[in-house]
């Protein structure tokens, strides 16, 4: 027996509620964050990821209360991302009960944020989220970093960026394929494999899960250390337990 591959359901939160939607369009209320977090916990989720998609800065504080409430009742690691701009945001979320904070756009705008935050709270609390898109006709294959929810190209090579963030103190990388996100065609396995082979820190694969085999492929072909999914769990198409059973049947170590 050894280290288990982790299954991480992701919850989009705005205005203190969990919402569902496709590519941030047609959001609808999906319920109480504590209730949903407890459900995933009972299904055997290894961690939970909360993404604050609040558009208005007025409502930003609401995620703090959500994390406080969840952290009082659910005792597995909680990662929180979305709108993190400065070290103080990181501290505020950790103080509310988050275990890790995910930094995305702000890391590109201000790379020192990652090293400053890691220096202050430790690398184990810092996740750098990278949204990557394939560069068409690149050979060997290359990917570009996008920011602002995947809307804005940066011209930065994703693998280079991953290495740089690792050196800056990122404790793990949350890697989302913008090509696959929302498609249900499975993770971008070449992207995941390229990151996993190039970096020493754990890689969380994200974007594109449609069925059980996608999770297995993410680990076996992609080399991912953890697998993140939102919609297949939100819409109850799969439970975390079913995903773990399928992984175990394929010989992947999971926590039971």
């Amino acid at each position, binding site marked *: *027996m*050894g*280290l288990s591959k982790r299954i991480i359901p992701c919850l989009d939160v705005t205005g203190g509620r969990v919402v569902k939607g496709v590519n941030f369009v047609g959001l609808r209320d999906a319920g109480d964050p504590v209730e949903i977090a407890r459900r995933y916990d009972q299904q055997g989720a*290894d961690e939970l990821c909360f993404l604050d998609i609040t558009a208005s800065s007025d409502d930003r504080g609401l995620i703090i209360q959500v994390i406080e409430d969840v952290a009082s009742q659910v005792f597995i690691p909680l990662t929180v991302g979305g709108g993190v701009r400065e070290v103080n945001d990181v501290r505020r979320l950790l103080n509310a009960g988050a275990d890790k904070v995910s930094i995305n756009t702000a890391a590109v705008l201000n790379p020192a944020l990652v090293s400053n935050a890691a220096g202050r709270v430790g690398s184990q609390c810092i996740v750098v989220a990278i949204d990557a898109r394939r560069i068409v006709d690149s050979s060997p294959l290359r990917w570009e970093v996008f920011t602002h929810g995947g809307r804005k190209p940066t011209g930065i090579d994703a693998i280079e960026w991953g290495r740089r963030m690792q050196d800056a103190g990122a404790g793990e990388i949350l890697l989302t394929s913008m090509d696959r996100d929302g498609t249900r065609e499975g993770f971008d396995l070449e992207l995941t494999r390229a990151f996993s082979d190039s970096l020493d820190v754990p890689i969380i694969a994200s974007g594109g899960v449609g069925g059980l085999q996608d999770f297995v492929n993410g680990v076996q072909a992609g080399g991912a*250390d953890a697998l993140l999914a939102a919609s297949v769990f939100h819409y109850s198409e799969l439970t975390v337990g079913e995903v773990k059973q399928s992984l175990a049947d394929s010989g992947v170590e999971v926590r039971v």
Partner: protein
Amino acid sequence: MANIAVVDYGMGNLRSVAKALEHVAPESSVIVTANAEELGKADRIVFPGQGAMPDCMREVDVRGLREPLLEAAACKPFLGLCIGLQMLFEHSEEGDIEGLGILPGRVVRFPAERMQDGAGNKLKVPHMGWNNVYQKQSHPMWDGIDDGSQFYFVHSFYVEPSDPAIAAGETHYPFAFTCAAARNNIFAVQFHPEKSQSTGLRLLSNFVRWSGSTDAPADKAARTAIV
């Protein structure tokens, strides 16, 4: 009413630890404190830690907590968590610094050249996620916890006790390392019980009922499920 003090020296996330203790011991008072007098009065001490050990040691000293910690570790139920385990030892490779020297041994980094599984796959550092904990001795802190249960880990360094008798648990990544150390009233673990779901809560629940003696069984009340 038992009084549990979580030692606050300004590093990392103490909130999770306090919340989990409150959950398993609603009748106790859980305080998060850097006050030496409060640590002296507390019935039990939880010594957590996150981040880099040199930073943690510096903050412990800046706050004048070294003596109160040594005193507490000499006499009352004392639980070290993560870096709170590592700091109990004599020396760490991380920053080449001295620890508190309460337990014999040193803290070393996962050696890059050994980080491969049997199939030749690269193993990542930090060691992050759920892994099995094998109990090396019977101890009241393991009461009700199956041998080989999984706990949540996040760390890049691990302890090497120079006295094998204090090893209370081990984990494989890919080689066996000590993930729990115990001596008299001290029990300390590399993993995070506060983040290890019902199994972790069980360990914390054992702690809040532990007499501090290694041979007394935990209170029977601890046998009822907590979650």
